[in-house]
């Protein structure tokens, strides 16, 4: 009975000892972490993969944990001047990560100080880069002119080079907003309004011009149409008249003398009406019987 409980308590004791030893010497590196093992303050080893690791207990060796994940740094808006002296508010974000934890520890030591350093480098590089580009290269409807991606690419490369000594890697650098400073907004709005007014005016005047043109065109077409029709009509009438004349000529031409005679008689009939007064000499053919008696008629 005693040996059994002895072995039992021994077992418990061994587990307890293992537990304590484990706490002092074993440690877990999480998926999201890198760990630097420092010996008496000097970094000796960096572990960047998650897993179970061992070290000598404190104070011989201690561990410092760093976040291995990609971090997104979003500094405040910065004001920059472009090459053509335009004042712009630029908001950026930088995706960065700790690539070399030992170097990081030696040079910076913490994420806030890293952010300060990145911010400085970023503002100087971005300012320099923007100073080389005109605003029309940042925003442009012509894709050949729009060089925003090129600008951020160049800035990212330059920043990457400058942060490499700190054990940092710049994954990506992007401009997330471009805007005008408050003090320039009024003039920007005025310009926009003026441009809109100009466009509105252009629509109005173009519309008016087009409408007038259509109307004038319509009037002209109408005149042309009617003139054409008139010409055609007159031609038809003329042809008809000619044809009629031809008909008359060929008919009356058969006996022009008789035509003259007949036609004159018809004219007498037409022109002498109730209002006409005839003065007839008695020696006219008509009245010859009256003055000369029937014997005169031959």
């Amino acid at each position: 009975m005693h040996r059994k409980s002895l072995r039992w308590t021994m077992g418990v004791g061994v587990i307890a000892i293992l537990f304590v030893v484990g706490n002092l010497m074993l440690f877990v590196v999480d998926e999201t972490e890198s760990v630097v093992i420092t010996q008496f303050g000097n970094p000796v080893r960096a572990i960047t993969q998650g897993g179970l690791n061992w070290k000598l207990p404190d104070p011989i060796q201690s561990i410092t944990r760093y976040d291995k994940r990609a971090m997104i740094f979003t500094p405040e808006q910065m004001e920059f001047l472009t090459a053509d002296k335009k004042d712009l508010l630029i908001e950026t974000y930088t995706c960065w990560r700790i690539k070399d934890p030992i170097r990081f520890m030696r040079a910076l030591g913490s994420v806030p100080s890293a952010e300060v350093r990145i911010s400085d480098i970023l503002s100087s590089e971005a300012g320099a880069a923007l100073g080389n580009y005109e605003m029309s290269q940042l925003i442009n409807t012509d894709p050949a002119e729009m060089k925003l991606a090129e600008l951020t690419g160049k800035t990212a490369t330059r920043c990457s080079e400058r942060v490499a000594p700190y054990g940092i890697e710049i994954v990506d650098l992007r401009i997330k907003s471009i805007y005008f400073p408050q003090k320039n907004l009024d003039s920007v709005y005025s310009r926009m309004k003026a441009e809109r007014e100009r466009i509105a005016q252009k629509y109005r005047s173009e519309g008016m011009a087009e409408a007038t043109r259509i109307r004038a065109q319509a009037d002209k077409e109408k005149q042309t149409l009617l003139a054409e029709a008139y010409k055609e009509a007159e031609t038809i009438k003329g042809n008809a008249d000619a044809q009629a004349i031809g008909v008359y000529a060929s008919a009356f031409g058969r006996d022009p003398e008789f035509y003259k005679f007949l036609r004159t008689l018809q004219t007498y009939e037409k022109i002498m009406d109730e209002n006409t007064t005839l003065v007839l000499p008695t020696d006219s053919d008509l009245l010859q019987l009256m003055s000369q008696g029937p014997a005169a008629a031959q």
Partner: protein
Amino acid sequence: MPENNGPAKDGPAHWWDGVLQAVAKLRDLGRKLSEYFAPQEDEPVSGVGDDIAAAFKHLHWGRVARLLPAAALLVYLGSGLYVVRPGEVGVIRTFGRVTQDEVGEGLHWRWPWPIQKVNRVNVTAVQREGIGVDIPEHKPPICPPGAEFHVLTGDENVVNIKVVAQYVVQDAGDYLFRVKLEPYGIVRNCLKHAATETIGRLSVDDILTRRKVEAQNAIQRLAQKSLDLYGAGIKLVNINFEDVAPPEAVRDAFKEVSSAREEAEKKIHDAEAYRNSLMARAQGEADQLRTEAEGYAVRTVKQAEGDAAKFLQMTEEYRKNVRIYSEDVTRARYFLETMEKIMPRVKKYLVKTGPGQLNLRLFSPSED
């Protein structure tokens, strides 16, 4: 009870004697404690301690002490059970490193902490984030609530946009462990950049009207590219412009352009209507002219033909008469017939001309 676990008096001292001594002392302590809790016959039962002692009196402390570790071990191992709900995926980290990232739904077991840890991620729920709009379920807001998002267009105009993106988790492991920022924060930053770059290529008229859908697609593509580059494990499923509008200060000027264009179109439309009706009427007039001329032509020719025919007929008759009566007689007859028609109508004055007197007698006196 007499203990004979004391240090061995005979034989060499072993290194575990000190340990055994400590253990013996612990057992003494335990015995004293159980004696303390055992009820005293000559004392009245009172107090909580006596009640508890009475309740647990039947337990054998030794057995309990032996069973306790086993029970603790069972509880510990039992804590490794976990449930993955439908729509979720489980990710297991073993000593910190991701060893399984696609645990499906159901009841599972893993080694409890500190050996293994499980995180569950909902991979089917669609989440929303926006720029220029407030998404109330995200606290704290990364930009102040109600803040407008201004973007410059390719032709140096400004528009305010409200964009809402919907996204799901694409890779649970990446989603959890690759980027240090709330997912909606990552999405928001990528969206802003994508919007800035996309709208910076379009004119203000394009983004307000014609190419909105194209812009939405471009923004989705660009933002997704960034998300993939950072390993965020997020997939954008939809991007939507809730609003695109010029800033308040210039809104009227923009409206003015719309109404100017409408006016212009109306003027042109009216002019075209005028032209159509004018031409229709003109065509009618033209046709009428032609028709009238044709009518005149027919009439004239017909009349001529009629007149000619009549003349020919009269000529025929005249010739016929001439053959019978002689030309002079016929002509005289025609003449007199005409005079008969005229004379009754006109006023007549007879004037004597020529020699002689007017003799109205029918018969001359020289005849007897």
